[in-house]
């Protein structure tokens, strides 16, 4: 496994140091414990804090900044962060209004954020993202949180910026999360630095359908097929789950898992768009690109969010982070 790396143990910090310098206009990075915080926190707002194992970049560190997260706590690659990180981040960015944690639903993340919440000495609530429909809704520990996290963080981030209350944001976050469904497909495994290789290998004619974002196996190994056929399976699964109606407005997010080209992602977007267009569903907003990656996995996920007018307004609200930007004036690249 060839990567640009000096040592597995120093990878995360060296990378964060580069991130801090490349985006010194937007963020500050603390190393012990590790968290990325936005440079200027608007006073009197609820602090939005997320985090999770590294390896999904730009999620979450790339979403720290105006209109989105106040802080992100990166764990080691694919390993949940530890409670002391969340506590330190909260201390740095939270005020009287308390903290809203946005957590992807994985045992490790849930437990570590929970410990942090218990130790925190300000009010906090947690929005659990569990958009991955690869697992049945009744799954014992709930579904996994995957690419829908970006949508939740963007919309709730905009609302937090407006000074909304903790309870309000929790309700909103849950609403976005509940209206969001994702499904992922892997064409290859990913190469985990600490393992020196892929978590799984796929024969040339197989794909992992319903794959997670940590190099876990998918729901099932399926036959490789044309893009049209693969995407059909993906969108039908989502459609069955969310059941958007004719005239409903939705956000369509096609997310690359790492090694899949933008050309392919836009092609997948086209096919998914066509499907819902035929169904009479209005694709009101869209996002195509690598936002929630699984290191260098080849593959993609499709996410659909049913939008209401408030969600659209908040999606459109200005955001200026390393990885997601629109609507802000006079914000030089890194001036």
């Amino acid at each position, binding site marked *: 496994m060839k990567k640009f790396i000096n040592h*597995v143990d120093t990878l995360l910090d060296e990378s964060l140091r580069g991130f801090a310098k490349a985006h010194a206009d937007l963020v500050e990075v603390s190393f012990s*414990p590790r968290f990325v915080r936005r440079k200027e926190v608007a006073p009197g707002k609820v602090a939005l804090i997320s985090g999770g*194992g590294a390896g999904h970049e730009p999620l979450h560190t790339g979403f720290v900044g105006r209109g989105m997260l106040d802080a992100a706590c990166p*764990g*080691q*690659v*694919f*390993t*949940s*962060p*530890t*409670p*002391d*990180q969340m506590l330190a981040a909260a201390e740095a960015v939270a005020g009287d209004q308390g903290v809203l944690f946005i957590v992807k639903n*994985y*045992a*490790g993340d849930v*437990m*570590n954020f*929970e*410990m942090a919440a218990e130790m925190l000495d300000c009010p906090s609530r947690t929005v659990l993202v569990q958009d991955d429909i*690869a*697992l049945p809704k009744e*799954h*014992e*520990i709930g579904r*996994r949180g995957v690419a829908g996290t970006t949508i939740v963080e963007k919309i709730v981030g905009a609302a937090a910026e407006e000074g909304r209350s903790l309870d309000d944001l929790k309700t909103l976050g849950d609403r976005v999360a509940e209206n969001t469904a994702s499904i992922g497909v892997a064409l290859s495994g990913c190469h*985990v630095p*600490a*393992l020196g290789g892929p*978590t*799984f290998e796929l024969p040339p004619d197989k794909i992992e359908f319903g794959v*997670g974002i*940590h*190099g*876990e*196996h998918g*729901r099932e190994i399926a036959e490789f097929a044309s893009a049209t056929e693969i995407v059909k399976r993906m969108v039908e699964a989502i459609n069955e789950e969310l059941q958007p109606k004719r005239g409903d407005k939705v956000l369509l997010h096609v997310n690359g898992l790492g090694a899949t080209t933008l050309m392919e992602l836009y092609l997948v977007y086209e096919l998914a768009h066509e499907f819902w267009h035929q169904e009479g569903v209005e694709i009101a907003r869209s996002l195509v690109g690598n936002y929630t990656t699984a290191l260098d996995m080849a593959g993609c996920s499709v996410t659909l969010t049913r939008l209401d007018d408030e969600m659209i307004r908040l999606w459109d609200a200005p955001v200026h982070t390393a990885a997601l930007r629109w609507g802000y004036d006079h914000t030089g690249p890194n001036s």
Partner: protein
Amino acid sequence: MPAIPELIQAALAAIDAHAEEVTELDKTLGDGDHVTNLQRGLKALLAQSDELAALDDWSQALQKMAMTLMSQIGGASGSLYATLFMTLAKQLKGKEMNLANFAEALEAGVEAMKQRGRSDVGEKTMLDTLVPVAAYLKRAAGEGKDLNQVLEEVKAVATEGMESTRDMLATKGRASYLGERARGIVDAGARTGQLMICAVADRLAEEMTR
């Protein structure tokens, strides 16, 4: 009794010796980071050897270890082991370290883990190793068993618990995503729990024969 650092060393050596095997388990059922997570935690404990050795109060030492594990391991196992050690520390506060007190603390510890993980035995996790071990120690302490015998028998209990995960379906942790695909493979956390328990038991037994 051996100093804490020696026990940590023994646990780490056992994990190191089986790193590949366990990584393979966590790659198949999870995300492959379990060994690295534990190694990072145990190494961090070792780095504090002097401070830990200096504390002759078990409760304080366990609390310090809990904090280190909490901030170093991460993942599911990090929060669970941190919870275990925090509870052990709390339970043993002001108490003498002996089998009975330890067994009682451990029972409380695994209860806390169940709460933290919203899980119980039979779900193909480290609890399948730890819960029977806690129960056995409680029983052994009640019966006033010889410590040498306990140290021998506890290994069999841990191993049996670990082995029991092989044919289970997983309902907690990442392995639960796999459904039937998880059957036939031992849970990584159950295996490392067993490895560490056996290593520590051996180290303690060795010490007692000196």
